[in-house]
């Protein structure tokens, strides 16, 4: 086995020097089903030829079989995962083989993290918690692990119930880690958003709003945080702040964000002030946009298209555009979907590389196997997200109907009380807008959307409710 691995490595190095894999290189390894050592040799040869994605197939075979090849294979598999940033196949493999132990502490921590994230994703929360806790606080992977642990601890499905304070402590600890490059920055932004959500769940509205404000503007989740922070503001009684922040999600700069719920919150704030005309305008716009999309999605989800069709829904620009209203772009931005698509692209590039040198046989078989799995996993993620969006849109459309019903009730009550709301509103003046402090810049909103102003909009709105009538309680 050692001789064969050496030969494969040597030929691999030669292949690299020539700029690509050679047929000879790939011919040295026999079909990986023969033995774990053969599978390892093929995996190593593929890695040496920079065919990391294809190497996942034989390396998994070798790693799954007890024997001397196992430890080497798991190390090589983790190396390929790190280079590819694969979030689908290797994590799933590790979760399915909890006893595999890489050779170095660093690789062991990585394996634990990947396993923990996969367990969390699949809902095995108790296991995920145990695994994630095994990653030491000083590890470079600790921020990601502690973020995931925070999410697990706050999950209502957690056996024994959620532990909010412990979750907040873990998430807060994530913010104290510096560095980590793009991944570190993203993890801190996610932790900040999670803290804001947990605080809102704990009804600490003021702290929640402040935590939402701290989500970095350049993070992937900023648009989401922008809309969500309307909730604590609304519940605090800051209707102007809530309306301002939610309204800002209409900015063209955020066109790639999929935030249908923002329109419902906007309508709710307006309804709370008995501004029925404005509420109706928002709801009509919402229904006009999202009912057709909801119907399209329902068909898509129920049809259970093939994996290739579901992937094409996101990768084909025309099909993606047909989803409309930022949904296509938001699917592309989903980390798991993005990782799946990236892996598929890599596999396609590797296929082209292999076929260009006339290599076939075992390597191509391995590649096809890996690709099929990757496509299935990506399609599952896309399908799950579409199903989630479809269900959410149905809920939101129902909420829109409830708001319409409540509005009709409110209008009837006005008629019964002989109140002409138009006259009432004309008689009332707009409350003055907040002026801010000396270090605040005040800008008029005149139809332009300036990137730096998004998130700083404030609104003032008249109260259209008759004085003697208590405002509808929707908070």
């Amino acid at each position, binding site marked *: 086995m050692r001789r064969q691995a050496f030969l494969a490595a040597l030929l691999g190095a030669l292949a690299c020097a020539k700029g690509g894999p050679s047929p000879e290189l790939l011919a040295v390894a026999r079909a990986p089903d023969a033995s774990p050592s053969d599978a390892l040799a093929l995996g190593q040869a593929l890695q040496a030829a920079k065919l990391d994605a294809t190497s996942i197939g034989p390396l998994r075979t070798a790693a799954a079989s007890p024997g001397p090849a196992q430890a080497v294979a798991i190390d090589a598999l983790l190396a390929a995962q790190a280079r590819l940033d694969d979030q689908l196949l290797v994590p799933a493999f590790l979760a399915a083989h909890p006893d595999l132990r890489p050779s170095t502490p660093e690789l062991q921590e990585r394996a634990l993290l990947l396993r923990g994230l996969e367990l969390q994703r699949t809902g095995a929360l108790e296991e995920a918690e145990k695994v994630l806790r095994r990653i030491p606080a000083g590890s470079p992977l600790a921020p990601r692990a502690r973020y995931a642990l925070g999410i697990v601890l706050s999950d209502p499905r957690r056996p024994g119930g959620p532990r909010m304070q412990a979750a907040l402590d873990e998430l807060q600890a994530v913010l104290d880690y510096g560095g980590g490059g793009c991944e570190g920055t993203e993890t801190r932004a996610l932790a900040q958003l999670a803290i804001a959500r947990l605080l809102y769940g704990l009804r600490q509205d003021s702290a929640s709003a402040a935590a939402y404000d701290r989500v970095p503007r350049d993070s992937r989740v900023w648009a989401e945080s922008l809309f969500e922070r309307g909730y604590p503001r609304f519940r605090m009684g800051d209707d102007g702040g809530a309306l301002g922040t939610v309204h800002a999600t209409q900015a*063209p700069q955020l066109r790639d964000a999929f935030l249908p719920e923002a329109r419902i919150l906007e309508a709710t704030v307006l309804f709370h002030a008995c501004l029925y005309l404005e509420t109706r305008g928002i709801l009509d716009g919402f229904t006009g946009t999202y009912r057709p999309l909801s119907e399209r999605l329902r068909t898509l989800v129920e049809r259970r298209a093939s994996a290739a069709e579901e992937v094409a829904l996101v990768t084909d620009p025309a099909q993606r555009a047909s989803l409309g209203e930022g949904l296509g772009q938001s699917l592309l931005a989903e980390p798991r979907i993005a990782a799946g698509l990236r892996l598929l692209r890599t596999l396609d590039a590797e296929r082209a590389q292999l076929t260009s040198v006339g290599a076939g046989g075992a390597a191509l078989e391995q590649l096809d196997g890996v690709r099929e799995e990757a496509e299935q996993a990506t399609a599952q993620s896309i399908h799950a997200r579409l199903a989630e969006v479809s269900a959410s849109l149905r809920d939101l459309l129902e909420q829109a109907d409830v708001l319409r019903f409540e509005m009709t009730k409110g209008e009837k009550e006005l008629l019964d009380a002989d109140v002409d709301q138009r006259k009432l509103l004309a008689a009332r003046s707009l409350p003055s*807008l907040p002026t801010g402090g000396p270090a605040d810049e005040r800008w008029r909103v005149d139809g332009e959307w300036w990137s730096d102003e998004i998130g700083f909009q404030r609104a003032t709105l008249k109260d259209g409710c008759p004085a003697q009538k208590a405002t509808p309680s929707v908070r």
Partner: protein
Amino acid sequence: MSVLGALLLVTALGADPEPTPPPDPLAGSPNVQFRVLEPKPFPDALRHELTLQPFVPQIGSTFTTHWLSSFTYTFHATEWLGLRLQPFWVWHAQRSRFSSELLSRVRQDAAAPSSVMLQWGAVAAPEWSPIRGKFTAFGGTVRYGFVLFAGAGVGGTEIELKTADSVGPATYGSTGLRMVATGGAGFRVQLGQRWTVRLEVQDLIHWGSVSHINGCNATDLHTLDQQRTSGGITGAGVSSQCNVGAFQGTTGGGYDRSNDVSIAQAKVNEGGSDTLHVVGVYLGFGVEL
């Protein structure tokens, strides 16, 4: 965006900040109003700004031409108000082309009070930033403020005695320290946390009659002139402030400086007074600390 912002946008860049969004159902509502309340990305309060204006040309001059360099220290007490201290040094001051032509073609010299030139000075002034704006440039947002300031200080002045001719360059006599008032307006553009660019128009105003030249009043100059015609300037009998040395010796070109006495005497005897404006365009580059 302010009107000034729009103006700058159109004239300088002509770029829309973003494409037009879809119609907003709340846009025309009389019951809802929006405003942006944005924290200043680079607050100014309690910060110090140092600005160098290396080449300041005088504009609209009649009888004199000044080129000067200036250094401005501004303490921003609040976001809107600051205090500026501005020393300046005039490194080129001479009779204007108009004045020179007047003299050479029709032998008509400008009145002495109108020919006094600034040599150096320092002014202090409160600064007010009543308007702020911003515009997009190179994918970013540039913020600017419109500033107004007015204040006072002192400046050293001089007057040309002999004009530049074949004998040698012009000679000058000091007309003493004078009060200088100042006022101006301009734009201050902030580039990031630290850097600023200022473009201002500033008027340095000084006035008064020419009653002394090189510290010598009319009586002193009369005495010196008599001494000159009777053999040589000794300086006997003149007041202690009179700088007799300025009228003694020769210039590098061989010009006998005692000849300046009669010119100085004529200018002092002219009388009258004038208000003089040195209006300059100050392009400055600053750093905020």
